[in-house]
């Protein structure tokens, strides 16, 4: 297993410049989080689904992610309506569930799902390293970009070390149970990885110095903003503008 997998593929979404994809994702998330209009939320959810389908995100992976998200949604539906003031929709074990509470939970769930879908379709389809490069070109601070890239670079290396050590523990009959021994063993495993990773970081710095490192990082990857990217951006922002207009015009017509 790799910790840095992404939804690889060759759809037109994959071929788009990562920079407009990042910006559109952020704009979409902001507009959706701002919305309360039922029509807009339905449209946002539909847009998210459409993009996920267009990006050919494997159904199983998508289901897994949505399931994880919606465990939280279920918590909302159980906890919010009983305490939300408003008309009673129904009562469960004599606990009243309010209509307003149910609607609030529903709209929150729709927002969350729509954002997750778009996030997965537009940004989850970018290789993480390319994402780092795109951040650089979007003027994210250089140190943050490189912290991100270095974190990614060694995630799988360290993951491999973790798995290997855990396997050796298993070979010595280690089985997790609710004992201090288990907590201690996991803690030592983590501690050992920390020690080794710090030592490795020193070797990396040595390797950097050997190649003349003087405090400056360089990014060589560049992107081309093509006609397709312009079209994608234009359509996306037009749709988002429509969402905003509908939201502002029909704010009264909630549900």
């Amino acid at each position, binding site marked *: 297993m790799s910790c840095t997998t992404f939804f690889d593929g060759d759809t037109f979404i994959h071929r788009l410049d990562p920079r407009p994809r990042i910006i559109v994702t952020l704009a979409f998330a902001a507009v959706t989080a701002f919305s309360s209009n039922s029509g807009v939320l339905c449209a946002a959810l539909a847009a998210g689904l459409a993009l996920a389908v267009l990006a050919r995100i494997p159904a199983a992976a998508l289901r897994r992610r949505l399931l994880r998200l919606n465990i939280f949604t279920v918590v909302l539906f159980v906890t919010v309506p009983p305490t939300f003031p408003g008309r009673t929709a129904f009562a469960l074990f004599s606990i009243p569930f309010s209509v307003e509470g149910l609607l609030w939970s529903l709209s929150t769930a729709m927002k969350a799902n729509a954002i997750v879908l778009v996030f997965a379709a537009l940004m989850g389809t970018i290789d993480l390293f390319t994402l780092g490069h795109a951040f650089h070109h979007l003027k994210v601070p250089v140190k943050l970009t490189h912290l991100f890239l270095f974190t990614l670079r060694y995630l799988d290396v360290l993951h491999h070390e973790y798995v290997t050590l855990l396997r050796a523990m*298993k070979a010595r009959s280690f089985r997790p149970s609710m004992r201090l*021994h288990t907590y201690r063993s996991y803690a030592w495993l983590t501690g050992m990885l920390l020690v080794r990773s710090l030592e490795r970081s020193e070797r990396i710095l040595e390797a950097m110095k050997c190649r003349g490192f003087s405090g400056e990082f360089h990014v060589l990857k560049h992107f081309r903003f093509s006609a397709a990217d312009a079209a994608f951006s234009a359509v996306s922002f037009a749709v988002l503008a429509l969402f905003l207009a509908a939201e502002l015009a029909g704010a009264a017509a909630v549900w």
Partner: protein
Amino acid sequence: MEADEILIRMKDVVFAYDGGRAVLDGASFELRRGERVGLVGHIGTGKTTVLHLIVGLLRPRSGLLEVFGRARSEERDFLDVRLRAGLLFQDPEDQLFCPTVIEDTAFGPLNQGKSREEAAAVSREVLGMLGLGGFEDRITHHLSGGEKRLVSLATVLAMKPDLLLLDEPVTGLDPESAERITAILHTLPQAMLIVSHDESFLRSVTSRSIRVGGGKLHPAVFD
């Protein structure tokens, strides 16, 4: 137990890493009580894989695997194997994770359900046997390469295994440490399966060897 009890029986085992081609493709062999068998072959042919299959860290795609007289296929079948078979990893860095030597040697015995006192006692005994008396409170991470190898061996022996699976126990060691380990292996009563590419070492320690190659296991003949 009978003297010629079969400890390991592998029959037509097929194994492939995820998405890769088969590393083992119809591999068969047997190891009996008291036997010491070498496992030789080029890098990447699957020597380590064989050891990991035996303790269930990897699972075959197909084929039969019997260890200690019982067929093993699921995780819980192997729990008992791991209590009785000691696997020495090639790189001690992959095996040692506790702060001090004695904590590392006591880890296995504690997992076997021994009390702290018992685990400490068996650790001291094994460390003494390996000439590591006085190493108990040394920080494992600060030991030399040769010392780490010896401590790894101690962590395995502390579990009093019936079977030793050793992955390159003397590779890269200075001659002194290598000789020390060779001498120790000579004195141990357990059955052993030893991966090594050092033929003179294998000739000295084992009674026969098996060559891994082309996914199969064959009796090996040294030049």
